[in-house]
């Protein structure tokens, strides 16, 4: 196991041992690592942490519904060429001037090993992943316009995230190492919170965590608050000077930072009211 650099996490990102292992296995086997998990569970951040941990550059390819596989390899900027041919500019006869490498192409062309993040692959067309199979397998591609092959000098580590908006094709899945980031349990969440807020009062952490996990249990939420919302919420609380001074059991300030869906906000607010009424009716019980 000494034949490659190992990722062991970074100080700003809390990562389970299984996930560390999966990252390392994916790098060692030269297979893309597919990451799924609830929104806000640190999928995108993982890639940044892996790059930082390995001391490599991160190239991020953000996928949109209109992204084509080809965009990641190279683009032949014919419009620029046409423009130049009419109005002057670069040497139009050298097509190479108009070939722009995409993120994958760039990663292959680098002298040193890099980390490539293909973020939110499920946003693209259903055929998108299949269109990349050969390039991901062989880590090279051919540019017919210039008759050149771009081949990876150093196989980049490839991390792919998905929010499961679409299912991914089997042929693509077969080639991946798969990791599902489970929603952090309170113990892990506490560590994550401490990474972001090293000076948070102990009592505040406990209260915030209890309130947070209770909120997640609320029946009927369209989108449960996740790690990123918890962090935002704590930021808001701190900014308002609440460090350790509010009883979060009694009231939840800045609920909007946790629940961004109007519907969810109302459900939770109503439930808290009911809860407060109940506790107000039993003033003698402790």
């Amino acid at each position, binding site marked *: *196991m000494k*034949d490659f650099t190992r990722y062991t996490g970074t100080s700003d990102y809390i990562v389970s041992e*299984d996930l560390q*292992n*999966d990252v*390392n*296995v994916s790098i*060692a*086997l030269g*297979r893309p690592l*597919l990451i*799924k998990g609830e929104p806000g569970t640190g999928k995108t951040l993982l890639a940044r942490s892996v790059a930082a941990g390995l001391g490599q550059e991160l190239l991020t390819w953000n996928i949109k519904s209109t992204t084509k596989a080809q965009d990641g390899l190279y683009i032949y900027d*014919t*419009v620029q*060429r*046409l423009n130049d*041919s*009419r109005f002057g500019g670069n040497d139009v006869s050298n097509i190479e001037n108009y070939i722009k490498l995409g993120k994958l192409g760039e990663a292959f062309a680098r002298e040193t090993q890099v980390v490539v993040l293909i973020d939110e692959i499920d946003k693209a067309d259903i055929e998108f992943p299949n269109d990349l199979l050969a390039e991901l397998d062989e880590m090279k591609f051919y540019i017919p316009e210039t008759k050149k092959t771009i081949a990876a000098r150093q196989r980049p580590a490839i991390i792919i995230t998905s929010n*499961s*908006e*679409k*299912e991914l094709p089997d042929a693509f*899945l*077969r*080639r*991946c*190492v*798969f*990791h*599902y980031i*489970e929603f952090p349990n309170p113990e892990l969440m506490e560590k994550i919170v401490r990474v972001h807020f090293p000076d948070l009062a102990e009592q505040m952490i406990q209260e915030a965590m209890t309130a947070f996990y209770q909120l997640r249990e609320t029946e009927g939420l369209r989108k449960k608050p996740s790690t990123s919302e918890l962090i935002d919420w704590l930021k808001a609380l701190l900014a308002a000077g609440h460090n350790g001074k509010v009883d979060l059991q009694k009231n939840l300030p800045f609920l909007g930072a946790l629940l961004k869906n109007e519907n969810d906000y109302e459900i939770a607010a109503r439930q808290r009211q009911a809860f407060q009424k109940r506790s107000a009716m039993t003033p003698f019980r402790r």
Partner: protein
Amino acid sequence: MVTPTEWLALMEALSRGFAGNSLVSFYHLSRSLLVKTEALFDHFDLAFREFFTGLEVPPEIFAELWQWLGQESLRREIGADALKDLPQYDWETVRKMFEERLKEQKEKHNGGNRWIGTGGTSPFGHGGHHPGGLRVGGEEGGGMAVKIAAERRFKGYRRDVTLDVRQIKVALKKLRHLRRTGSRLELDIDETVDKACKNAGEIELIFTPEHKNDVKVLLLMDAGGSMYPYAKLVDRLFSAANSVNHFAQFNHYYFHNSIYDYLRPEIDGRERIPTAQVLKELNPDHKVILVGDASMAPYELFMENGIIDYYDRNETAGIVWFERIASHFRRTVWLNPMPERYWRHPTIAAIGQVFPMFHLSLEGLDEAIKKLTAF
């Protein structure tokens, strides 16, 4: 299904010592390399638990794998020749067993004592010792891994049981296969610019057939009493279908046990629309999804005036209406929330003859949608 590519990846990873000496690592490693969706993690857990707590697993295979996994020597570099020693049949057998166990577990959900914890007869049970020194049931050894599997933390992600609105929407979106249809042409600006550039500025207009989504859906839902336990499920299906705003047309009606002369536009409204009118108005291209348990007294389905609402009458038997629907529309499916083992019931069987019937689970829904989109 585990494919050879995936199996080989696991073999490579194992041979390079990624599982170390621990079954816990092996659990995670094999899951990451063999199972590519969290929906199947629970199946994997079940199989893993059965296999590694399993007592009736043929001892030779178990011993071989176990030894191979557990050997001290594995911690050291395992040579390529050692890997070659692992004969091919091993994989086949293991895989077959894996699949058999899976099937078995599906069929009898309560497991029974054949699989788990009968204790004692094999050297590999809980608390036993492995000759190589790995203790099953210890903190580091197999016990821990089996415990992880036994927790079944991914039960909630199974697709054959759970169905939430988002999942249904994802499934239904597959219906809206965009097709280039019709003869109307539209100017494809991207292509035109591209072509012009490639032609060094010579403009050539490119036209393509109109890109339009022509999927029309008719949803017919049983809101009868026996459907009560499934009300939430049907409701989710409805709200998912209703919010997939890509259908060219979406119609829905309710019925009570069987379809007769009238359909209801609202679940508990009084308004009624003649079924014949609906058939006349909707063209055969509509993809029809019927949802119901198809369970009723036989006379409700087969007889005139069999309708359960006793102040009501129907001149035509329910089954005849179903047949008319099936012959009017080109693509129809029936989704039944009842588990398949009940489908021998006479009215379910009869309706199953008229419409292709699928279980109202994500798996079933996927199958149904394949049926609806087939040419």
